[in-house]
């Protein structure tokens, strides 16, 4: 079982892990540029690096799509996690599917469609074999996909996110506010967690059952 760490601050690199997830699942204004990735790679020369990408609008799509292709071609990153249908559509044509991971937000976008019909055929035809999940419900979405590797997020499962982030401060297409990480309680959930524009809850009770699946190859630890 591989162990990976999702890091949001590229200057923090005192972890002993062999696999790092960088980038952002939820904010297109929090994506690192090529210079930052190059510096990070220099400090982590023998480590596996995975670039995570969020849902994108056209403001950043072209930039992130071409950045992803360049990083893969120059071997600055090993894999790319995709959460946007458009980026997936683009990258399959440009770099093939081998280095693509289907992110957990994209798994929610397809949902049950993954289990049969055109969508399942699309996954099989394009050899989309690496899928990130964080919950039992997501496991149910991919029960009919046999030859895949599952990567599990820990210790939180995604609940929701907004693009109307109340904290953002964008200058030159980048957000310069440090995302707030904090515990949050609501009337119905007392183990919620807020990270900038997104909300999560603990998936510790589901992990034991999740980890029984023989297709699981990697655990991704978040802060």
């Amino acid at each position, binding site marked *: 079982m591989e162990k990976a760490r999702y890091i949001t601050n590229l200057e923090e690199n005192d972890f002993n892990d062999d696999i790092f997830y960088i980038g952002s699942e939820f904010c297109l204004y929090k994506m690192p540029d090529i210079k930052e990735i190059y510096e990070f790679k220099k400090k982590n020369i023998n480590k596996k690096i995975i670039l995570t990408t969020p849902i994108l609008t056209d403001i950043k799509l072209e930039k992130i799509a071409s950045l992803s292709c360049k990083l893969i071609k120059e071997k600055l990153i090993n894999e790319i996690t995709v959460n946007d*249908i458009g980026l997936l559509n683009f990258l399959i044509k440009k770099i093939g599917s081998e280095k693509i991971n289907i992110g957990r937000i994209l798994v929610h976008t397809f949902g049950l469609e993954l289990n049969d019909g*055109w969508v399942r055929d699309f996954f099989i035809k394009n050899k989309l074999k690496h899928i990130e999940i964080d919950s039992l419900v997501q496991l149910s979405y991919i029960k009919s996909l046999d030859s895949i590797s599952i990567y599990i997020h820990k210790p939180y499962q995604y*609940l929701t996110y*907004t*693009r109307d982030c109340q904290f953002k401060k964008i200058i030159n297409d980048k957000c310069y506010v440090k995302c707030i990480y904090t515990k949050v309680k609501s009337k119905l959930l007392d183990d919620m967690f807020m990270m900038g524009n997104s909300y999560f809850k603990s998936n510790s009770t589901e992990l034991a059952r999740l980890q029984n699946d023989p297709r699981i190859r990697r655990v991704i630890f978040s802060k």
Partner: protein
Amino acid sequence: MKIISGIVNLKEAKAILPYSDEIYFGVSWIGNHRKWYKWQNINDFKDAYKIITMCVNEKKPIYLAANEIYLAQEREKIISEIEKMYDIGLTGIIARDINLIYELKSKLKKIKINLSSTAICFNSESVDFFKQFGISRITIPQHILPFEWEKVLKRHSDIDYEFFYFLDCYCPNVDGICIYHNIDPNSKSVCAYPLYIGSEKVFMKIPDMMERFSRIYDLSKMKIKYIKLSRDGTSINKMNNLKTLKLLNNILRISSSRNEYMERINNIVKYGKSKIHN
């Protein structure tokens, strides 16, 4: 802008159709994005028949909301139910499920497909992806800012677009991938519940009213053809929203600039007798 109204029963359809260019509805036997409220769906096929026939007679398009993701074993029945309504005169469906769209289009080549805002189609490459299924219109997701959609319009001018009447319909989180709104099985209003960071009470925020007014201006100037009123609210609310929308359309028409439009809106909100928003 053309007005699309969501309706929830025959009586409402009769009242609202004269003031709308198009209507849409859901039925209780086909899951849709109003599963929380039984009253927001038509429960009797006879009523669906009458509403569709009424629209056919008035030569106005009518769409069915079938905008959830369905199990494989449900799809065949759903397609046959849609076929029944299509035979009466249903124009098309509002959908997100790719498998459903693909299979339905294989059977009914001319049925119109309006891609639901819940499909998470956020950019021109995504539009490119969905176009292979023969969609004819896209509901622009609420969290897209108008300037973020400009390239889509340039690259995909062969399909139509619509957006929600933001003053009345705006989710704080990205709809279609929001797990949070299913947390409470009895209510869809969970995002209005307070959150506590320590002892501090906070709320999930939505853009203020003036910001939402400005988005309507920008989208209308981008020549988005349709504005859509949701199924939420009472019939009285909906009639009020239609009046407001008529007023908004007039303000959009007479304002020579964004500033002038915002100033007029500001004056109405502050001093006007007409209630711009309930």
